[in-house]
């Protein structure tokens, strides 16, 4: 039952196995095995009337050394994907289907002790709000040395030395003093730097950054994103960058997955998502976005009419169909399988080629 027992054979399977859905994503180029592969991942929460499907059959590949962006509005399921990878779906939600292949082994159904070895050591997470993700009653030093001691078996003295080096590396001034500081004694930007230090302490292969700069001011956001880019190069980490901000995703990722109501509607290299959009939702999102490039006379933004469907009452077929300007009756039988429309570019809209040309 446990993934531990299967993990030996799974390595080869992960590379060779033919795929039923979303063909393109699952064949990483040049034979390099994917670091992380989600297949048909489904996460649901029981509600009074049935199930709220937070993540609906999502397939996604994260290649080694790459930054994969997940962009979408609130409730689209982007945070749930990160939580599912680390086995942190809040009760009563659960992974009800699909696989999460981490370096070839399936993390769905892995034992608690197995997950503890992965979590923090192999896959680390940077949370949105550093003031609630850090424990207010422990010092910063305490919280950085903990993973070093637990995962890497460092002595107290060695862990302290390493932690101070990490604090210096993430740009915290006078790290020796900050080591003994409590989270409330640091500014928001400094707290986020401390959380990044914790995340990279065990040199994980993958960092899941869930809206890492959303609670920060724009100049601090800029500093933190710059720091993350440096650390990625230095440590050779892969990253999943979750954001609601298309601008953040545009400037900091290699490829992007656009989510809507639990489904990935489009995946593409970052430049292609903006230059050659192939899903009506992505296009609508870009058109609704205000820009710092002032136009005179003013051109009104194009809002997306209506609102996203309730997750426990998803419409049949494409969840965006009720708000889509190109919608037809056929949209109700779309199964959200992505089809390739370009190099590493896939869309879940089967009519994209007809409707989006020139868009």
């Amino acid at each position, binding site marked *: 039952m446990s993934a531990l027992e299967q993990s030996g054979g799974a390595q080869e399977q992960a590379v060779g196995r033919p795929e039923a859905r979303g063909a393109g994503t699952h064949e990483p180029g040049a034979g390099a095995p994917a670091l992380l592969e989600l297949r048909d991942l489904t996460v649901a929460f029981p509600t009074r009337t049935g199930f709220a499907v937070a993540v609906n059959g999502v397939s996604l590949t994260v290649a080694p050394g790459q930054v994969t962006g997940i962009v979408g509005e609130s409730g689209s399921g982007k945070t749930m994907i990160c939580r599912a990878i680390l086995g942190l779906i809040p009760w009563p939600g659960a992974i009800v289907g699909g696989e999460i292949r981490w370096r070839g082994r399936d993390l769905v159904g892995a034992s608690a002790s197995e997950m503890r070895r992965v979590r923090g050591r192999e896959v680390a997470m940077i949370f949105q709000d550093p003031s609630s993700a850090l424990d207010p009653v422990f010092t910063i030093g305490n919280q950085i040395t903990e993973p070093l001691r637990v995962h890497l078996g460092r002595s107290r003295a060695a862990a302290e030395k390493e932690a101070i080096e990490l604090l210096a590396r993430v740009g915290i001034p006078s790290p020796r003093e900050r080591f003994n500081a409590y989270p409330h004694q640091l500014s928001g930007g400094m707290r986020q730097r401390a959380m990044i230090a914790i995340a990279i302490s065990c040199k994980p292969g993958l960092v899941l950054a869930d809206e890492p700069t959303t609670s920060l001011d724009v100049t601090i956001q800029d500093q933190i994103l710059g720091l993350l880019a440096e650390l990625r190069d230095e440590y050779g980490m892969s990253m999943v960058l979750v954001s609601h901000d298309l601008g953040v995703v545009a*400037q900091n990722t290699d490829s992007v997955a656009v989510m809507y109501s639990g489904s990935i509607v489009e995946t593409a290299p970052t430049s292609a998502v903006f230059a050659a959009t192939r899903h009506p939702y992505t296009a609508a999102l870009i058109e*609704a*976005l*205000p820009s710092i490039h002032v136009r005179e006379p003013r051109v009104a933004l194009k809002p997306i009419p209506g*609102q996203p469907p309730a997750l426990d009452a998803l419409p049949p077929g494409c969840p965006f169909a009720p708000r889509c300007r190109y919608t037809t009756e056929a949209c109700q039988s779309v199964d959200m399988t992505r089809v390739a429309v370009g190099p590493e570019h896939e869309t879940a809209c089967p009519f994209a080629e007809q409707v989006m040309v020139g868009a």
Partner: protein
Amino acid sequence: MSSPAAERPASEPILEIEDLRKRFVMARSPLQWARRQPPRVLTAVDGVSLELRRGEVLGVVGESGCGKTTLARCVMRLAEPDEGSIRLDGSDLLALSRSELRGARKRIQMVFQDPYASLNPRMTIGAAIGEAARVHRLVDAGGEQRYVAELLELVGLPASASERLPKALSGGQRQRAVIARALALKPDVLIADEAVSALDVSIQAQILGLLRELTDELGLATLFIAHQLAVIAQISDSVAVMYLGQVVEQGPTASVFRAPRHPYTRALLDAHPDPSVVKRRDAPAVAGDVPSPLQMPSGCRFHTRCPYAEERCLQPPPLLDVGAGHRARCVVLPFGSDG
């Protein structure tokens, strides 16, 4: 729709804020009290002057702690300013008595960031909108229902929303309801404090469009406070950039965004992640944290982080005119070569 600020007929400003100052005296700890230490003073708003005309949206942009919300609260007189004047249609708001203030207050209405927190969860939308109008005697009991229906239509809500509780509405609909409630008093000035910050992009565009339309059609004067530059660029006719309690740059939106003359405005624009630029720069736009407003830097407030800082920046810089209503509080950059 709107014409550039320069071509607008020179009407009198409806709201004039002059040299407004607000300081907060911090509470002393028992130890500080016993040691007879003076309390620390936080300077939130430090000499802000702004003008707002009918049919105009004035954007106030700045990072957290720059004083933009305190500024709004002072205009509403939810906070008492220490110095300066606020004139509504020529009369000084700060000189009004309590009862006179009640009359003036309905002419200035506010929309807050969080529509969930600013509506009573037990009151139907119709009751919330109607109550304000009834209290201020704008409608009698008989006309209330029709008045509410008109307002709901104005903000793009279905008439059925009147009977609903806030929890039955989506975030965007709730913000529309809050806007309807503010408009129920037929205000001259609408203050929107981070009114679209909590909303998703697709909904944000709807509310931005609505606020702009209402400003244009009802001749409102809208003070639009936000931390998102792009939102300010979209909706505002003119803009004021705040840093540590001061306006560091102000002017027509196009002029400020296209040719920023203050290093802080430049840093903000550089730091803004623009989706049309699919590559990030190597160095961050500006280093360091915002200094604490409890220990304000002397001279130019930005000199501790400014890449252009010189010796003379240790003297407080004046707000210099750089042409066409565009002013910047910098003595180095405005007339420099690379502007």
